[in-house]
């Protein structure tokens, strides 16, 4: 199912170039024919539908507005296995959680385009009376049901579909009135799938971005978004931002005008604030350099993406701090988790509680900024240098084409992602937390960072090894994976040595 299959006819050589109209029409026809509900997509009707939505239900408008008013919005995740459960969930998140953006997470069969399995999951869910799927099977339910979900809430709806294969889900959701889609060719292919090549992932998302450009041409601005949190496991800011820049350039090349950039929180106040500023700045910088003058970009931080503690009290602190970090960083929005994170998908109520914790934390820190703080200014500079070294190299390797450069760079290990399940990624780079609580690069693998940057990272990590009296090496990375999940009494003992 991951193979290009029947698409041979429309297969162009890989490049960042905008897919020509006729080719795209052909691609769409083939795509929509893959599952019966594809026939429900009517582009003209979809354009009408979006035009009829009030601005506050259009995510592109909402993200621009949040940016203009310096607001930090909240958005949870959330998906259940049947339409009824999903509708209730979205209403609770909207009304009790005061979510500014309401999500629909798709289930993992849908993500992998195993729609037959998803159908079985729906049936099992109905039989068992509890969700047997970890999300909403958007494709199986089709356009009309999607529209009903959007109508059930008073906020913009976004698709969260963690997949390298977004083509049919995206068509259906957008046609139903969803105004945002999270996912991108590089980020999700390296973190959500084992056998699919990066090239196929990029091609799949070029389709989605091209679709959004088609809406744009028809006068409907839709929001696209990149999940720079990747494998969620101790991703240093530079690694996230590198993928943000590249995915963003790929989307802009297809004609996307409203693009969000996401990063998992490092949980270090200064590092997260620096990352947010640099992400915004460098994406715009590279966009302009490559002639994309009018792309709006927003930045979203995500609540801690690594392993969570099993104590609700500890989790509540992580959630609240996540709001604080996003507010102080000046992020446009924050994607929230709940106290159930370590255990399983949260109930609607627990999910809404996480939203209110986060919202309160944002309110409390809404006016704090770190501009002028020496450490903040330095951290920004380090991140800039790490990002530029790699992105410039990728562009060079592609002879000016981002898509081609990306593939070549992954092959060479110039681009690399920690803890990736994808066999086309070297996954030799290894991050760890330093003594101050910042994420640093322990082993760069083959990524060509400048020497002084690597020395800086190493010095920081050696200081931690010394302080904790452990050996400098991969164990630092493994213990950093567990760290936030440890009982607090272990992290900050209540005894004296």
């Amino acid at each position, binding site marked *: 199912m991951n193979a290009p299959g029947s698409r041979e006819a429309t297969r162009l050589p890989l490049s960042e170039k905008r897919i020509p109209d006729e080719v795209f029409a052909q691609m769409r026809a083939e795509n929509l024919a893959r599952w019966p509900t594809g026939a429900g997509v009517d582009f003209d009707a979809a354009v009408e539908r979006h035009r009829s939505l009030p601005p506050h239900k259009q995510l592109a408008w909402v993200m621009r507005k949040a940016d203009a008013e310096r607001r930090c919005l909240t958005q949870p995740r959330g998906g259940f*296995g049947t339409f009824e459960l999903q509708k209730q969930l979205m209403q609770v998140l909207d009304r009790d959680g005061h979510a500014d953006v309401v999500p629909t997470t798709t*289930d*993992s*069969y849908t*993500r*992998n385009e*195993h729609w037959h*399995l998803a159908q*079985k*999951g729906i049936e*099992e869910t109905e039989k068992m009376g*509890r*969700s*047997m*799927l*970890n999300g909403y099977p958007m494709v199986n339910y089709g356009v009309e049901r999607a529209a009903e979900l959007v109508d059930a809430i008073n906020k913009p709806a976004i698709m969260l579909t963690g997949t390298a294969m977004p083509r049919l889900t995206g068509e259906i959701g957008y046609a139903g009135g969803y105004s945002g889609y999270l996912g991108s060719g590089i980020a999700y292919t390296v*973190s*959500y*799938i*084992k*056998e699919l090549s990066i090239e196929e992932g990029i091609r799949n998302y070029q389709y989605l971005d091209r679709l959004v450009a088609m809406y744009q041409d028809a006068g409907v601005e839709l929001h696209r978004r990149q999940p720079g949190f990747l*494998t969620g*496991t101790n991703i240093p800011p530079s690694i996230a931002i590198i993928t943000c820049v590249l995915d963003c350039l790929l989307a802009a090349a297809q004609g996307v005008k409203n693009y969000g950039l996401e990063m998992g929180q490092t949980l270090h106040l200064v590092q997260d604030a620096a990352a947010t500023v640099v992400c915004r700045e460098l994406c715009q910088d590279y966009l302009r350099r490559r002639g994309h003058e009018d792309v709006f970009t927003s930045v979203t931080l995500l609540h801690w993406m690594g*392993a969570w503690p*099993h104590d609700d009290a500890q989790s509540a602190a992580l959630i609240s701090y996540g709001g604080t970090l996003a507010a102080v960083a000046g992020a446009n929005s924050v994607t929230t988790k709940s106290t*159930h994170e*370590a*255990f*399983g*998908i*949260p*109930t609607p109520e627990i999910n809404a509680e996480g939203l209110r914790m986060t919202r309160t934390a944002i309110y409390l820190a809404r006016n704090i900024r770190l501009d002028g703080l020496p450490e903040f200014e330095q951290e920004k500079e380090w991140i800039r240098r790490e990002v530029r070294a790699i992105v410039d190299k990728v562009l060079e390797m592609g002879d000016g084409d981002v898509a081609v450069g990306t593939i070549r760079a992954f092959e060479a290990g110039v681009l690399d992602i920690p*803890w*990736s*399940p994808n*066999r086309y990624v070297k996954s030799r780079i290894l991050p760890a937390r330093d003594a101050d609580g910042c994420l640093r690069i322990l082993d760069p693998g083959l990524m060509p960072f400048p020497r002084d940057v690597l020395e800086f990272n190493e010095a920081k990590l050696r200081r931690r090894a010394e302080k904790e009296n452990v050996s400098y090496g991969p164990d630092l990375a*493994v213990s950093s*994976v567990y760290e936030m*999940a440890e009982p607090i009494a272990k992290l900050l003992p209540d005894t004296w040595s």
Partner: protein
Amino acid sequence: MSAHPRTIVTGVIGSDTHIVGNRILTMALEKAGYKAVALGALTPAADFIKAAVETDADAILVSSLYGQGELDCRGFRDLCVEAGLDDILLYVGGNLVVGKQAWPDVEKRFLEMGFDRAAAPGTRVETVIAWLEHDFAARDRNAQKEPA
């Protein structure tokens, strides 16, 4: 541990991409002297069995984190039996079901499916290694008692 190292197949079942815990577990098995056959993320049930047969494995450790393990793992023991792996040691672990459910219920559900042990969310590698040692030792004792 015996001179000839035991072979253990690991992997993440179904459409599940959560590789981190499984990879750390695999590293720990190797460090503890086991021979690990690591199938990685998104592994169909059949691939586990195939690998176990091919490598003459002593145990299969199935990870499932994403919640759909309850669907993916049904019939896993039957597949083993069909393949002639009648009493291979079978463990499953991770976040096995959708949502926060009472662990004893979940454990029961998976033991009834034929797993020898099920590991609750967040189980540490030290625990898993201790289980393996205990269960292999028990098997050795049984094997000595029954004439081959």
